[in-house]
């Protein structure tokens, strides 16, 4: 929050989560309905319960187990099993939609029709056409519309992106994103007929898999850092390990190319977790690891003379001498441990700040600039990437989807 306050002047959409922004709306409350209080929905409930300006008044889920878990957190909230009934509730000012991807479009559009402000989880929708229609309907409604791209509110990301955009580390030459896990991505299912309902991420009817669930967050890094949209995408995807009836890929590799030739990659494998999650911006003079908030200079400040000397002696004593030397030297990765970019420890991932900003916007009636547009492009890019994987083609960014 402290760091967010410092950055608010340069990043207008952060105003709502600064002390000044919160003061502006003190005493007022947004009455919120949660549609889809599954694991992500309950995560939002936990954050909303920390915000004095938020009051959760209604919950909706057609899966009773989730509804019960959410009710336990907010016993006073009214319960619904049909989102349309919740939208008819006159005491709901805003809805948080955290349902399977294929439902986002219909629910969001219906919410605008019912006069509600909307926070919708990412990705925005199942198709690019739906994303564009949601964007247009949201703007036309005059209501507040947020999409769950919490990195936009993470002080670490904001600070780093500000420096990157100013060229402090030289020109951006590459953007690398990856997300590696080693699990089947399944949730336990109490009865077989609930398989698709609960494990919706694994089926094409509901989800676009790794691209919409993971890439959506990371692809934003490139557009944010470079201030432009990629012009083409190519890639490949397969089911290489989890051959358990799922329909979405468990391994994807994509390359997005920007108009200046810079490439941004997104890779994900869910049968090896060695490298974990990484988001790196490679500049001519430094590499920035967004996830850890560390900066690795291309030419780090040399160690002191005496340390270099000791290191040289150590190397002379302990390094093994080659029996028959190689004819070339491999370029080993830098052993530089980097420096932390943030001046203070920053907790969280921006999710709480995002909800604070949403409540602030609903109460003031001011849609913050750029937030929706950034989210829209994040979603369109992941959907375009998935199309490239399915079609096995290089796809150009379609002009009709530019805002």
């Amino acid at each position, binding site marked *: 929050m402290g760091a967010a306050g410092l950055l608010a002047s340069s990043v207008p959409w952060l105003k709502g989560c600064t002390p000044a922004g919160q003061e502006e709306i003190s005493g007022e409350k947004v009455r919120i309905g949660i549609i889809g209080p599954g694991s992500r929905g309950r995560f939002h409930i936990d954050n909303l319960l920390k915000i004095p300006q938020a009051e959760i008044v209604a919950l909706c889920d057609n899966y009773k187990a989730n509804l019960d878990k959410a009710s336990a957190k907010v016993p006073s909230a009214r319960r619904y099993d049909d989102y349309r009934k919740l939208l008819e509730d006159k005491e709901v000012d805003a809805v948080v939609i955290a349902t399977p991807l294929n439902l986002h479009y219909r629910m969001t559009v219906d919410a605008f029709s019912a006069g509600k402000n909307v926070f919708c989880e990412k990705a925005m929708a199942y198709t690019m056409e739906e994303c564009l229609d949601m964007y247009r309907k949201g703007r036309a409604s005059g209501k507040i519309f947020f999409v769950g791209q919490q990195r936009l509110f993470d002080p670490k990301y904001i600070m780093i992106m500000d420096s990157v955009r100013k060229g402090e580390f030289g020109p951006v030459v590459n953007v690398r994103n990856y997300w590696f896990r080693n699990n089947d991505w399944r949730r336990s299912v109490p009865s077989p007929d609930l398989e698709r309902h609960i494990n919706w991420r694994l089926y094409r009817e509901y989800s676009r898999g790794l691209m919409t669930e993971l890439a959506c967050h990371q692809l934003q890094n490139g557009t944010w850092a470079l201030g432009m949209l990629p012009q083409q995408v190519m890639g490949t995807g397969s089911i290489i390990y989890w051959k358990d009836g799922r329909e979405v890929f468990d391994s994807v590799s994509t390359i997005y190319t920007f108009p200046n030739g810079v490439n941004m990659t997104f890779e994900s494998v869910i049968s090896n977790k060695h490298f974990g999650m990484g988001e790196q911006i490679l500049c001519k003079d430094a590499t920035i690891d967004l996830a850890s908030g560390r900066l690795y200079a291309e030419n780090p400040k040399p160690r*002191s*003379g*005496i340390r270099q000397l000791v290191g040289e002696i150590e190397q002379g004593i302990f390094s093994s001498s080659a029996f028959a030397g190689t004819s070339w030297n491999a370029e080993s990765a830098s052993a530089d441990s980097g420096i932390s970019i943030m001046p203070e420890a920053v907790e969280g991932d921006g999710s709480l700040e995002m909800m604070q900003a949403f409540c602030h916007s609903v109460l003031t009636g001011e849609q913050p600039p750029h937030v929706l547009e950034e989210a829209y492009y994040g979603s369109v890019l992941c959907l375009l990437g998935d199309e490239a994987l399915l079609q096995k083609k290089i796809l150009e960014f379609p002009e009709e989807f530019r805002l």
Partner: protein
Amino acid sequence: MKDTVITAKVKRREISLAAGCFLAAFLVNVYAIIRFGTPWTEMFTQIGYVIVLSVIIYAVVWVIRLCIMAVMALIRRGR
């Protein structure tokens, strides 16, 4: 257990030896500064490393002295 008496002469010798080790470590630091072209302020900023290095040199000198003493004792016993 017997009382151990450290004479003034021994104290002076050990202090001189420790000072010599510190000087040697200090000169190593000066050499490193020249060799790697690092700032001369490292003569003071790296004093911690110099002290650690002087302790190491002192310990190495002691190991050598112990070896010499052991050899001398063996020679004396042989006579």
